[in-house]
C-alpha cells in the first residue's frame, strides 16, 4: 500500500482535567474511505478537530505527506490540503451557489487595472462541478438555501475537491438526512474517493460506514480499538465495539437486532 497521506501518531488531547483523547493513532491513505466510528462522547469530534487544525494536540504527532505538521489554525490545514466537513458545510443560505462555491477563493479578473470578481468564470465552473456531481441547478445564482440538505453536502464536497483538498474529513454528513439524500451523499463520497482523495468519514451509523468504507477505526472513550480492513469485520462486530460490548449484547436480544 502507498504511504499514508496523513498519519496521526499517539494523539493525546486534554481539556483541563478531562482526557478527551488518550493516544490515538490513525493513518489515512489516498483514495480510501476511512470510517471513524464511535458513540457520542467517544472523542470523534475532538479527533477530527485535531486533524483539521482546530485543536492543537496535547502530545503526539501529525504527519502530512511525510512532513510533520504543526497546524496553527484551520487555515493552515486548508492550505495543507485537508478540508473538514465541519468547515465545508459552512454554506451561506442567502448567497447563491456560485458565490458560496468561491467564498474566500474568489476568481478575479483585471479590468483597467482594477480587480473584479470574475462572475462568468465562477458561474461556469460551478455549473460544471455540480453537473459532474449529479446535481442540476436551476442556475448558478440559485440560493444555497433552496437546496436540500444532501445537495448542500454535495456542493460542499465538490467545493473542497475543486480547491484541491487531498483529505476530506466529513463529520457526520449523513446524520440529519433522509434515506435518499443519504444515498446521494454516499455516492458522492464514492466518486470523490475514486478521484484519489482520502476521505475520513465520521459516523455512528454502521450501515452507512459499511456502504462506502474501506477501513474502519472505532473510537471508544478516547482510545482506538484498532483499525479493520473491509471484509475483516462484520457490522455486528463494529456495533459491539462502538457500544463497548457488553451492554449492547444484552440489549440485542430484547431489541431483536434492530439497532
Amino acid at each position, binding site marked *: 500500500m502507498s504511504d499514508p497521506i496523513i498519519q496521526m501518531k499517539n494523539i493525546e488531547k486534554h481539556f483541563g482535567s478531562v482526557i478527551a483523547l488518550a493516544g490515538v493513532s490513525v493513518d489515512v491513505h489516498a483514495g480510501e474511505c476511512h470510517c471513524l466510528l464511535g458513540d457520542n462522547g467517544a472523542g470523534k469530534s475532538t479527533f477530527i478537530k485535531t486533524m483539521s487544525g482546530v485543536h492543537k494536540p496535547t502530545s503526539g504527532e501529525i504527519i502530512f505527506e511525510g512532513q510533520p505538521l504543526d497546524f496553527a489554525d484551520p487555515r493552515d490545514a486548508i492550505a495543507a490540503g485537508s478540508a473538514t466537513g465541519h468547515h465545508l458545510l459552512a454554506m*451561506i443560505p*442567502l*448567497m447563491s451557489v456560485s458565490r458560496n462555491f468561491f467564498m474566500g477563493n*474568489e476568481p478575479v479578473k483585471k479590468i483597467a487595472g482594477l480587480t473584479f*470578481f470574475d462572475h462568468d468564470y465562477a458561474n461556469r465552473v460551478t455549473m460544471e462541478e455540480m453537473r459532474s456531481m449529479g446535481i442540476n441547478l*436551476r442556475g448558478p445564482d440559485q*440560493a444555497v438555501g433552496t437546496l436540500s440538505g444532501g445537495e448542500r453536502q454535495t456542493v460542499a464536497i465538490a467545493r473542497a475537491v475543486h480547491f484541491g483538498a487531498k483529505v476530506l474529513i466529513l463529520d457526520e454528513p449523513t446524520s440529519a438526512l433522509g434515506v435518499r439524500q443519504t444515498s*446521494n451523499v454516499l455516492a458522492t463520497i464514492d466518486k470523490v474517493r475514486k478521484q484519489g482523495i482520502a476521505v475520513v468519514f465520521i459516523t455512528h451509523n454502521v450501515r452507512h460506514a459499511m456502504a462506502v468504507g474501506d477501513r474502519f477505526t472505532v473510537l471508544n472513550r478516547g482510545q482506538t480499538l484498532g483499525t479493520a480492513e473491509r471484509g475483516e469485520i462484520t457490522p455486528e462486530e463494529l456495533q459491539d465495539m462502538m457500544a463497548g460490548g457488553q451492554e449492547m449484547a444484552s440489549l440485542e436480544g430484547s431489541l431483536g437486532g434492530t439497532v
Partner: protein
Amino acid sequence: MSDAAQTDERVKEISRLRRALIRPELGGIVGTIAVFTFFLLFAFDSGMFNAQGVMNWTVVSAQFVIIAVGACLLMISGEFDLSVGSMIGFAGMMIAIFGVTLGWPMWSAILITFVICITCGAINGYIVVRTGLPSFIVTLATLFILRGFTIFIPQTIERKTIIGGIREAAEGDWLAPVFGGKIFGGAFQWLGDAGIIATFQRGNRAGQPVVDGIPMLVVWALALVIVGHIILTRTRFGNWIFAAGGDADAARNSGVPVNAVKIKMFMFTAFCATVFATCQVMEFGSAGADRGLLKEFEAIIAVVIGGALLTGGYGSVIGAALGALIFGVVQQGLFFAGVESSLFRVFLGVILLFAVILNTYIRRIITGER
C-alpha cells in the same frame, strides 16, 4: 441516480413573478414608481417638478443617499451603526473648531475631521468584533458619547453650540468646493439664458438661473452609489461583505477575513457620515450641535425600504439609494402638496412596516424556509 437528479418532478418551476420578487431592489423600484406617480398626479402644479422643485427634493434625497449607502453596506455585512447621526453633528463641529476657532486652513480642518471620524468608525468596529457584543449596543454608546462631545466642546471653547463663519473661512480653499461647490454652472446659465429654466427677475441675482448648478452633495451621492454598487456586486470584497453578514463563522472558516471586513464597513459608514457633514456645513456655513439628529434611523429605514435584511447578508446599494429617494421625494413632496408635515412620520412608519414584511417574505422564498 444521475437520472433522478436531471429532473426532479417535485421542483416546481419558479414563476417569473417570484423570480423578479427575489431581487432586493424590487421594493425600492415599486415604491419609487408609486411615489412619483402619486406626486405627478396630485402635486404636479405645485412647483415640485420645475427646476427649483426638482433640485429641492434631489438635494434632500441625495443627503439620505449618502448615509444610506454606508448604512446599507454595513447592514449587509451584518452590523448596524446607530452613531451615524451623532457622527454627522460631531464631524461638522470638528470642522468648525479646527477651521474657524483654531483658524487652521479649511482643507486641513476637513482632512483631520475625516481622520478623526473614520478612526471613531474603526473603534466602533474594533469593539464590536473583539467583544462580540451586538453593534446595536456598542454604537448606541457611541451615539451618546459623540453627541455629548459635540455639545461640550463648543460650549467650553466658544460658550455657544453653533459655530458660524465657515463659509468665510473656506473662501479660496482648494478642498472645500469638493464638498460645498456646484458643477455645471455654465450649462445651467445657458439653460436659463435659453429660457428653458426660470431665471431671477429682480434683485442682485437678476438674470441668473434659479438653479445655478448641481451641488457637489448630489455628485457625492451618485458617486457613492456607483462605487458602492460595484464593490458589492462585482468584487471579491463584495462577496466577503455578503459572506460576513450571511454567516460570520462560515465565512471565517472559508478564509474570509470577517473582522477586517466589518471594521472596514464601520469605517466606510463613518466616511459617509463625514461626507454628509462636510457638505452640510459648507452649505449652511455653520456647524450646530444638534445636526444629524435621528439620521441613523433615517438611513436604516432607507436601507430597509431598499430591500436589505436587518439580519444581514442580503441587500442592494441601488435599493438603498431608491429607498433614500422615496424618503426625500415624499418628505419634500408632502410639503409641496400642502399636506401637514407631521403626516410624513405616519407615512414613514407605514412604509417601513410594509418593507419589513415584504423583506421577510422574500427571505423565506430565497432560503426556502417555511
